[in-house]
């Protein structure tokens, strides 16, 4: 459902066609002015957007330690999202807001397994009603690769005025699984994160990632670094907001959240049971006694689907369960291996709850929030604490008479002593007694409490409840007024297997309304493994009790809940079926609570202590029908304690609720559309490494319909073999065909013909044979497997940048000089290890070049992102894909004309130097040499050979080596304060 206001596909595609027209048309200046005007409109919009987002971004600092991170206010009541690794286990933090001031915030809930924490600002915000400027939550599932994002925060704690740093970039990858460790070496994975090339640096942690519409789509938390230390390398990861939403109810309740897991270990492998070579996901291990085992899953079983999604890769499983809280109900479809019959059985579905995943962080204490169910009388508490202070001051003195001492103190006295009074003891013992006495007296006093903090926290919780109440009210609409509460419920009884709709009706009348109870049986059968069966009569009792309760209950009489909500608190989050809800508990007896759907705000169930059977009863709506923006419960589940006692089909008469969804603007997909086909032209290349610090992975370009691949001649290809992973995840064996000595390019050829099925997943690139002039500033996308962030079928990483320059320069690659003498493309689109062999593309999908490893400029000692221009590779690709010629023949052709004979110029430089080569001062000029004819003199300082800048003697020699006898060179030199130029004709060296 795309809002036409934000992107009109028809108009956009027309626009794209328009840009295919080359830019070098007549009247360039006019079109430049036009482009400037249009770009300014975009720029103005972005400036305004960022100015509006800025007040919600905060600097998060510890009161105790140095350092800090970032955060974002995500709700006008002053609730802040940040990383757990920023708050750690502290209780109170100082928050620097862009108004330049510090504010205090209490840490409310922590999610160490998801690296998220929620804090609440104390005091009143600057807006009407004491509110704070807040960012609006977006949806990370709407993001597309190539979409513009803004990262904001306080990198390197640069902001002394707490005005955030804004960095702009694009989404490089979505649904990335990043394992890893968090603080104290604990398991901390980012199971489904967003990869961006917007600069994220230390200190950005906890800060917001906004999409192009200014909606909060993630919390920046992690970067991938390189040998240069802890600075951005073009790879930042943000925890997706969709994941955070799943934990928000628990976090707002002040909990230490738990992530869910299936507790099974599955591998992507060849069939371990039959050895057929068929690849799939197989269960290869289970934690003893895990839920899945109890439900019948066994080692060797083949996994098929998780919650309706095909499991193709193990990362899928890790990703999908990693974003869910413990207790979340999932359906796992599998085929059991039947060893006796040596075949797989029928497809089975097991419905199970995820169990808590122990990341090791369970040892972290929960945030120190008060017992929400017990609201103190703050005025009285404050008075008590003031009195406590007084009482502390007026602790009675240590009795002087030893006989009066309490038993604990008398133990300290020497056994043989005739002392009667404290004064008689030695001074050391006196002091000891004094201290012990004081400690004992203090222990008698009531425990000290931070009244201010508690007041702030209860104020915060009142805000949360008010917020939920508003949402609940809105979702109820006019439910109670519209209809009488008449509900037909259908309990499903286990022993009735007739199934298939209503078979038997049992009518009960409660308070003058009809309840029809119909028995139906499919649900319970499915849960046979986990349900502890009650006896028939028990079920009957509960069912009758339930049906009555259902009517009296807040779930179906929400107006009563609302009136009770004045004294409520959020107890926790809860997973109900496949949904997340707030447990909105009412203070007072009965443990009553209503479950409020976290996404839509409608009631998802309720809880109370049943006076008849004495246990805690929960009613959960497990299914509902959706019609437009209205939802109607269709199925409910009744639990007593932890057991599911009954499932109910709600047939008719249930109230329908308003499912509040806000129209979320969808980011533009212009770039994503352009990138999609290109992603099929770049493949993952794996070779052998065996060397420390040399990665065994890279990227490659598909250059022929047969699947030939062009890649970079990297150490991982030393033995000439490689495995190439296609965009569909299929793996193929490749061998080196030819290698270009200067360009650093290698052609790989598949060992066996690749099946059409897989060839269809790639798109062969064509290489332009003529040079395209790429002006500095030309936008580019790099597509590669940088840092090996994509595995199997996962899409490669995309980074955006511009052409910095096309130049001939003195470059080092892997510590060696790069022999290629032509022009290379330098870009500012980030690349990294594994980028080599990847593609550099223009906005309209043109191939500009092949990425090299990160090169180093000898002139600046800095790393450059570089690509070999496509036209330079065209001939090589043509040679490599033409099968008729022998590789040796081709190599000979490439190699001819490389070694040049030495030349004579007649210049002898002053080369004495210690650490480094000195400037190129002429020491002597040989007689009768080109230099003497050109009238060069000793003490001239040579600064240029043609266009090559010469700063040292070594650079001079290096430049001269590129010329052959007979070549003419222009020599620029400085004599005194003047700069001069001469031309030399080089001679053959004798």
């Amino acid at each position: 459902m795309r809002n036409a206001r934000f992107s009109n596909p028809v108009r956009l595609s027309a626009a794209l066609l328009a840009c295919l027209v080359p830019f070098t048309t007549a009247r360039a200046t006019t079109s430049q002015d036009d482009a400037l005007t249009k770009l300014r409109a975009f720029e103005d919009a972005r400036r305004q957007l960022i100015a509006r987002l800025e007040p919600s971004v905060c600097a998060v600092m510890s009161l105790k330690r140095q350092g800090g991170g970032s955060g974002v206010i995500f709700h006008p009541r002053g609730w802040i999202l940040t990383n757990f690794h920023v708050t750690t286990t502290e209780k109170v933090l100082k928050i620097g807001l862009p108004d330049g001031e510090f504010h205090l915030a209490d840490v409310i809930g922590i999610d160490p397994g998801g690296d998220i924490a929620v804090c609440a600002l104390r005091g009143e915000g600057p807006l009407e009603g004491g509110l704070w400027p807040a960012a609006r939550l977006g949806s990370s599932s709407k993001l597309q690769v190539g979409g513009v994002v803004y990262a904001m925060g306080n990198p390197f704690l640069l902001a002394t005025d707490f005005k955030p740093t804004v960095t702009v970039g694009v989404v490089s990858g979505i649904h990335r699984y990043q394992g890893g460790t968090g603080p104290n070496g604990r398991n901390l994975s980012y199971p489904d994160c967003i990869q961006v090339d917007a600069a994220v640096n230390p200190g950005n942690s906890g800060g917001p990632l906004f999409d192009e519409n200014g909606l909060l789509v993630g919390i920046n938390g992690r970067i991938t670094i390189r040998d240069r230390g802890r600075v951005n390398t073009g790879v930042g990861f943000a925890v997706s907001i969709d994941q955070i939403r799943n934990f928000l109810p628990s976090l707002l309740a002040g909990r230490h959240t738990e992530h869910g897991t299936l507790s099974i270990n599955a591998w992507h492998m060849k069939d371990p049971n039959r050895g057929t070579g068929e690849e799939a996901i197989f269960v290869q291990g289970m934690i003893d006694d895990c839920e899945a085992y109890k439900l019948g899953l066994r080692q060797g079983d083949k996994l098929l689907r998780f919650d309706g999604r095909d499991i193709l890769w193990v990362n899928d499983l890790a990703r999908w369960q990693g974003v869910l809280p413990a207790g979340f109900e999932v359906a796992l479809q599998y085929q059991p291996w039947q060893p006796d019959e040596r075949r797989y059985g029928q497809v089975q579905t097991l419905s199970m709850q995820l169990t808590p995943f122990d990341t090791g962080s369970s040892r972290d204490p929960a945030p120190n929030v008060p017992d929400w169910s017990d609201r103190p009388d703050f005025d009285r508490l404050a008075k008590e604490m003031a009195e406590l202070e007084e009482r502390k001051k007026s602790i009675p003195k240590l009795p002087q008479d030893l006989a009066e001492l309490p038993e604990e103190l008398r133990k300290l006295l020497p056994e043989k002593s005739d002392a009667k009074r404290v004064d008689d003891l030695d001074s050391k013992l006196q002091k000891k007694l004094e201290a012990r006495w004081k400690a004992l007296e203090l222990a008698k006093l009531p425990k000290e409490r931070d009244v201010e903090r508690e007041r702030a926290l209860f104020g915060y919780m009142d805000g949360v409840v008010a917020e939920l109440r508003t949402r609940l009210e809105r979702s109820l609409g006019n439910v109670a007024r519209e209809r009488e509460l008449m509900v037909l419920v259908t309990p499903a009884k286990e022993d009735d297997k007739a199934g298939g709709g209503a078979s038997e009706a049992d009518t009960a009348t409660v308070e003058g309304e009809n309840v029809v109870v119909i028995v139906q049986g499919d649900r319970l059968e499915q849960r046979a493994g986990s349900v502890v069966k009650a006896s028939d009569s028990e079920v009957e009792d509960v069912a009758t009790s339930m049906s009555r309760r259902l009517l009296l209950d807040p779930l179906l009489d929400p107006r009563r809940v609302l009136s009770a909500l004045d004294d409520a608190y959020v107890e926790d989050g809860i997973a109900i079926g496949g949904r997340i809800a707030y447990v909105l508990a009412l203070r007072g007896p009965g443990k009553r609570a209503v479950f409020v759907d976290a996404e839509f705000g409608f009631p998802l169930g309720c809880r109370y202590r049943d006076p008849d059977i004495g246990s805690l009863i929960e009613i959960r709506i497990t299914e509902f029908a959706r019609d437009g923006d209205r939802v109607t419960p269709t199925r409910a589940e009744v639990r007593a304690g932890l057991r599911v006692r009954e499932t109910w089909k709600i047939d008719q008469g249930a109230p329908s609720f308003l499912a509040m969804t806000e129209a979320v603007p969808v980011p533009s997909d212009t770039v994503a559309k352009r990138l999609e086909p290109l992603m099929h032209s770049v493949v993952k290349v794996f070779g052998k490494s065996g060397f420390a610090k040399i990665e065994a992975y890279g990227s490659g370009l598909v250059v022929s319909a047969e699947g030939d691949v062009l890649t970079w001649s990297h150490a991982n290809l030393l033995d000439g073999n490689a495995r190439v992973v296609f965009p569909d995840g299929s793996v193929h064996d490749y061998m080196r065909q030819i290698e270009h000595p200067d360009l650093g390019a290698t052609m790989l050829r598949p060992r066996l013909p690749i099946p059409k099925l897989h060839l269809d997943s790639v798109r062969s690139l064509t290489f332009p044979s003529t040079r395209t002039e790429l002006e500095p500033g030309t936008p580019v996308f790099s597509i590669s497997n940088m840092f090996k962030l994509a595995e199997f079928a996962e899409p490669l990483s995309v980074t955006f940048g511009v052409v910095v320059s096309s130049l001939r320069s003195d470059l080092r690659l892997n510590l060696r000089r790069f022999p290629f003498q032509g022009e290379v493309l330098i870009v500012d689109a980030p690349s990294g290890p594994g980028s080599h062999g990847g593609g550099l593309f223009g906005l309209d999908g043109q191939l500009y070049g092949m990425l090299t490893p990160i090169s180093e400029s000898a002139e600046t000692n800095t790393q450059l992102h570089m690509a070999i221009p496509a036209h330079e590779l065209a001939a090589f690709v043509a040679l490599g894909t033409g099968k008729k010629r022998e590789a040796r023949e081709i190599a000979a052709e490439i190699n001819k004309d490389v070694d040049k004979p030495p030349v004579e110029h007649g210049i002898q430089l002053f080369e004495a130097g210690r650490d480094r080569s000195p400037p190129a001062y002429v020491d002597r000029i040989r007689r009768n040499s080109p230099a003497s004819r050109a009238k060069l003199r000793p003490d001239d300082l040579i600064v240029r050979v043609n266009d090559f800048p010469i700063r040292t003697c070594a650079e001079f020699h290096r430049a001269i080596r590129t010329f052959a006898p007979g070549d003419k060179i222009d020599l620029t030199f400085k004599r005194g304060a003047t700069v001069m130029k001469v031309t030399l004709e080089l001679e053959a060296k004798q």
Partner: protein
Amino acid sequence: MKPHHRLPASVLALAFVAAAPLHGQADSEVPEFWLLPKVVHRAAESIRASVVTVETFGGFRKVLEGAGGKPKVPAVPGLPKPPGKDGDKDKDKKKGLGPIRMPGFIQAQGASTGLVISKDGWIVTSSFALNWDPSTVLVTLDDGRKFTASVGGTDETRGITLLRVEAEDLPVPEFAPPGTIEVGQWAFAIARSLAGKGPTVHVGAISALDRISGKAIQCDTNTSPANYGGPLVDIQGRVLGLIVPLAPAGEAAGVDWYDSGIGFAAKLQGLDDVITRLEAGETLKRGKLGIALDPSSLGPGAMVVSTPRGSAGHGAGLKKGDKILAVDGVSVRHSMHLQDAVGHHYAGDWVELRYERKRDSGVVDVLVRLDG
């Protein structure tokens, strides 16, 4: 319960900062990235004549401040740490002679970039280019003319140094009026440090406006020795600032952040007084009170925790426990704010401090001459 817990939804909705996103797309059929090449080209063409190549020859490494010439990197957890002491023994022996090393970076002697700021031959460049204290500085103009340059004064707080060449009618670029610069706007870095045919371009956006005590704007444009000394320009090619390596800690630091998305451009606008002093060959240092402040205090005001003998603060009579309330009439919010307010000045400047001393329960105004 406080009354504002019952807020109408409409009030809540207003507090969201991006309730109605803005979109430039509405006005243009061509998506933003597609407009870039022409605009960048136009901007680069309009400034290229003022961007010059600066080459240095000879010279030895300047002994930088701090032990072993290493930049002072703040010991803040989460920030890159300087290389360990043990590994640096050999380098320390050669201090003042060997190449300049930052964490993860060794300074080469490649070409750098400068920007013409006056018709009669004044050129501003990044002090980084002159770290070697070269014997010869060569300036090449866009038209190919080459000049040897003399080195003028340095503003250490901005990391800029003036060069002078004997030339006339040099093209002075247009500067963006400071009030028009906003976070989020495009920022192009134009330079000639890499040997190409024309200037190089890096593209990014303005990240923040008042960094390094208000002396620099911050950008996410890649900045590195490949463009230090060059101008950062807006989409019209107007100068926003001069690209320099900067960090809160000190003069030479900041190179280790090259290409990290944290870049700085020293503000040049409205610096007539400073430029005059630099033309006279002065070296301007950051002004310091030389006192230690309590970082944990939330403010308002900044709490003094120690005043070393000989520091400007000590000379002004500040004592441990004093709370500094204002600098030059501007209320101090917290210790970081005070450091900014003082760091805005140069050594030798006079500032007026207002502080409160608990015992005397009085408020005192003093004039302080800042240390270097």
